[in-house]
């Protein structure tokens, strides 16, 4: 059963780090709201996760002036894409 994890707080929350210890191959991680600040390269080396997809929500990135700053390995999606991901993964796990 694949999961989509949504991260909605900034790196100072260490939410992603907590989430990473529980990820399984085939899972996805979506950065939303203040979670957007995780999407820069400067952020502490992401754990090397083989089969994990990373996404960020375009609207939240634009609002925060972070669209240009995000690293290339993160796919940008819009709200429609968000809905689609919710359907593609078996469940959604919210981290907040």
């Amino acid at each position, binding site marked *: 059963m694949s999961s989509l994890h949504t991260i909605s707080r*900034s790196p100072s929350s260490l939410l992603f780090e907590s989430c990473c210890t529980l990820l399984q191959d085939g899972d996805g991680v979506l950065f939303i709201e203040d979670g957007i*600040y995780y999407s820069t390269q400067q952020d502490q080396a992401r754990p090397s996760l083989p089969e994990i997809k990373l996404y960020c929500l*375009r609207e939240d990135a634009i*609002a925060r002036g972070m669209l240009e700053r995000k690293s290339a390995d993160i796919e940008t999606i819009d709200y429609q894409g968000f809905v689609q991901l919710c359907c593609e993964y078996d469940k959604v796990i919210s981290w907040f």
Partner: protein
Amino acid sequence: MPATENKSAPLKKSITFISRAAPYGSNNPHLCLDMALACAVFEQDVNYVFLNDGVYQLLRNQKGASIESKTIGNVFETLELYGIDSVCVDEESLSQRGLRVEDLVIDVKLLSRQAIATLLHRSDCVFNL
């Protein structure tokens, strides 16, 4: 009735605001700014410090309209109009986030943690949100 002309000069205090929250995620950045502007209107000596995630408030190219919010970055240009000249950013918070002064919307003073500690020590009153 006390004679108003005998009143001593209004008490002027040194008030420091520490804004620590990222924009849009909570209302704290706006609350902090509103308090500071109110104090400045009453001719208090205001210092404004951006610490931790608060530095994200100053990033260029913010577009709050994208999530139906007010863009907070632009608002800081009003600090100067209100006579708040002491706008400071914690150097460490900035570099930890891979940001440089060129990435920010306004001119700020870069302060070390030690310098901020001294500023707080000197202040009569500190608001921290």
